């Protein structure tokens, strides 16, 4: 993983340039997103979610509540699931973030594959967070029990939980197969 402090960052073309009067931190905050280095030079209290969405236009992580209740904004920070809506940039800085857009490598992540196969999504708005949560769960618990699945606290308003249960089971199979 590239160290953001050692790699010169190229700001994304879509980044707004209008933060001229924002309170600037002493030094721009370095952050690694999906393996690429970036700097944040705006309000250090700004949650990671708005840096991803408004600055980088990585819109896979969604806003659903703004106070860590729903999980639609879930991303991995150093491999651990985090609600991006409540993580200020000053705390996200110098860490490596994986968003839903960065989850797949050359092929789809098995969890994404299972989600498509089982057709888990209805409106789909929560599903990038659900997929991140499931990927984390399966990394820790390759054969998750009902109680393990119950620890996933991401909200789905459409009620896709029966399909999510099946998709997690299918993803567990795919991950097992991949190890063989």
């Amino acid at each position, binding site marked *: 993983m590239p160290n953001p402090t050692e790699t010169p960052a190229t700001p994304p073309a879509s980044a707004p340039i*209008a933060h001229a009067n924002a309170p600037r931190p002493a030094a721009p905050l370095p952050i690694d997103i999906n393996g690429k280095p970036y700097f944040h030079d705006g309000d250090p209290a700004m949650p990671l979610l708005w840096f991803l969405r*408004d600055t980088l236009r990585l819109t896979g992580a969604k806003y659903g509540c703004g106070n860590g209740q729903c999980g639609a904004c879930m991303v991995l920070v150093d491999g651990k699931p985090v609600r991006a809506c409540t993580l200020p940039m000053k705390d996200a800085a110098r860490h490596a973030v994986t968003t839903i857009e960065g989850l797949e490598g050359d092929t789809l992540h098995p969890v994404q594959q299972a989600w498509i196969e089982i057709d888990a999504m209805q409106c789909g708005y929560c599903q990038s967070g659900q997929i991140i949560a499931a990927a984390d769960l399966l990394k820790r618990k390759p054969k998750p029990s009902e109680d393990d699945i119950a620890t996933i606290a991401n909200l789905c308003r459409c009620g896709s939980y029966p399909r999510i249960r099946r998709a997690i089971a299918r993803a567990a199979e795919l991950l097992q197969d991949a190890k063989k």
Partner: protein
Amino acid sequence: MSAPIDRGRRRFIQVSLTAAGALLVAPRLRAAPMPTVPPELLGDDLTAVGPFVRIERDNRIVIGAPACEIGQGVFTDLPMLVAEELDVDWSQVRVVQLPYGYADGDGDGAASVYGAQGVDASGAASQKHLREAGAIARWLLVQAAAQEWKLPAEQLRTQAGDVLAPDGRKLSYGALARTAATIAPPDKAPALKKPDAYAIIGKPTRTADAREIATGHRLYGIDAYAANALVAVIARCPFAGGTLASFDDGKARKVAGVVDVIELPKNADAALPAGVAVLAEHTWAALQGRDALVVEWKPADANAEPESSAALVGRAHTVLDSGEGGIKVRNDGEAEKLRKQPARHRLEARYELPFLAHAMLEPLGALIDLKQDGARLVAPLQDPDGASRLVAKLTGLQRTDIAIELPRGGGSFGRRLDNDYVAEAVVIAKAAGKPIKLMWTREDDLQHDRYRPFGVHALAASLDARNRVASWSHRCAATPLDAKTPNAGLLDASEFPAGHVAHLEQTFFALPTRLPLASGAWLDAFRAFAVESFIDELAVVSKQDALKLRLAMLEDAHAPATTGGVETARLAHVLRECAARIDWATPRSNGHGLGIACHAVAGGCFAHAFEVSVEGRQLQIHRAVCVADIGRVTNPLNAEAQIAGAMLDGISAALYQAITLKDGRVQQHGFQDYPLLRIGASPRATQVQIVESNADPIDPALASASAAPALANAVYAATTVRVRKLPLMAELMRML
């Protein structure tokens, strides 16, 4: 080039050849600027067409999804209907979202209000319109093959994107596209396929954009950005109908990134809450700016007692006790007289239901760019036709000059049928003179919804010597949606058990409120909770089986042929099937209890059954069953998801949710005080069964109404605690 048909059809169908040689069959739309039509759907000469079907020379098929996808599955289901009649292999098809456009002449939206299965207000008609578009394209391709081969068209058939000749020759649609585009469409729509010929309709079909969703690339309303758009958030008056007293934006304007603060202009064409909008370069600045506002609000009537849920509950019981001021909705036999007379079994019970919020996961929002000669609106819209009219009214622009893009929406549940958020975006953009991306927060959403009405039902019934329901009285005191017909949606004269009991009366009492309210499928849940809980109570008091009591009423020789607008026999059928699937006849032990309920809605029938146990403060739903008759099924995979989702919605609302008023304000601010069901509390095993039905398709998402009473009935069976007030968990914990 275009080949008109007759006057009527010409309004809808246009056949064209694009510059690249692809065949395009499309509804004809008036010349609106549509920069948003996907470029791959447009030939050089087709800037004014919102297409349905495009056939490429290399045999790829592109079908436009004409309605906004908000989780009801129309992005997949509607193109399936087109593809079926076109007779292509679904794997050949790529679906793209069409912008909203409206047909020439009559303002009939090409993209209007669509539920799951493509069901709209006119029922199956929308399905026919879409299927005909596919059938006409197929007809043209067959004619083209007939020309090529010099054979009569009647001898040709189609299969999976090919036209076949009797001698075994075949031509792909792509190879025929150029010729087909030169042929005049038929005078009348070709015959549609018979169900036994279906290759796509009725087959489980996955969400067409599932991959984009799973990889985070599908764009939702909130993902719309425009280079020069300012993000707007609004501080709204917390008192329904209240006004702005004063505000100080000094601190807000000092927040880095805040560009402007404006009082929301009043507009007679859009009844919006009073508000102060903060405009900023990005979302975080807008939110910080709004937090820094100092605003004082005035209630609508400073002299009146501020509204509260406690006062509403009190008023409901007062009017139900006195019986004064009621509207008689139905009065059969001598129900009034029998209400107080002695009977073998007499029962009275009251059921209280709170206000509810829609709480779709993606809060409201809209991106709007107003120009002198046109506008661009990007928002998930459940009623794009209404939005188009509203924007025209607010701006004075011609509807043809208003381009509307329809990104995916993160749920709606009826909330987006109200275009208030579009109106807000327009009035702010007008005042600011800049493109605006309006954003609602979760708190805005719960504080400024159109809520499900609040109400108390008073049920009374007596049973005769043979344990049959002899008289039934249903009195409902609730906040009305409609001043002219106050009982509309809240007490229904056609619904079970009306018609099934000789002596029956229904009386409605209106409890006025300033809180904005919304109609929708949740009104069925409002009514069904009382009726289906009370039937269960009657069974308990008379020591009858709750299933048998229902079936005895539904299948009585004198039972009406229809109940709630649906054949009574269909309702009885789903109830029997549901009982069989939960294994109703087998008594449960270990503190497990079974509950069942059924309900007819909008032409469909649903029955729910649950097996639950309660240990300490934990309610565990071990099994959940829903049996549904939703008419003919377009996409079983989507329908099953919609029915399961509606059931979980019913459970979620019943267990946890209430919007309450205190001091004239809504007290809920987020998912911390308006909880949604989480996966851990959702049923461990869920079974959805869709019964064979030849009825017209209905929206499977209506399947929530009987979930709450079935759950309360199961809780009673497990605990002997009868919950008559929702939300259930709070009441159960109070009573245990």
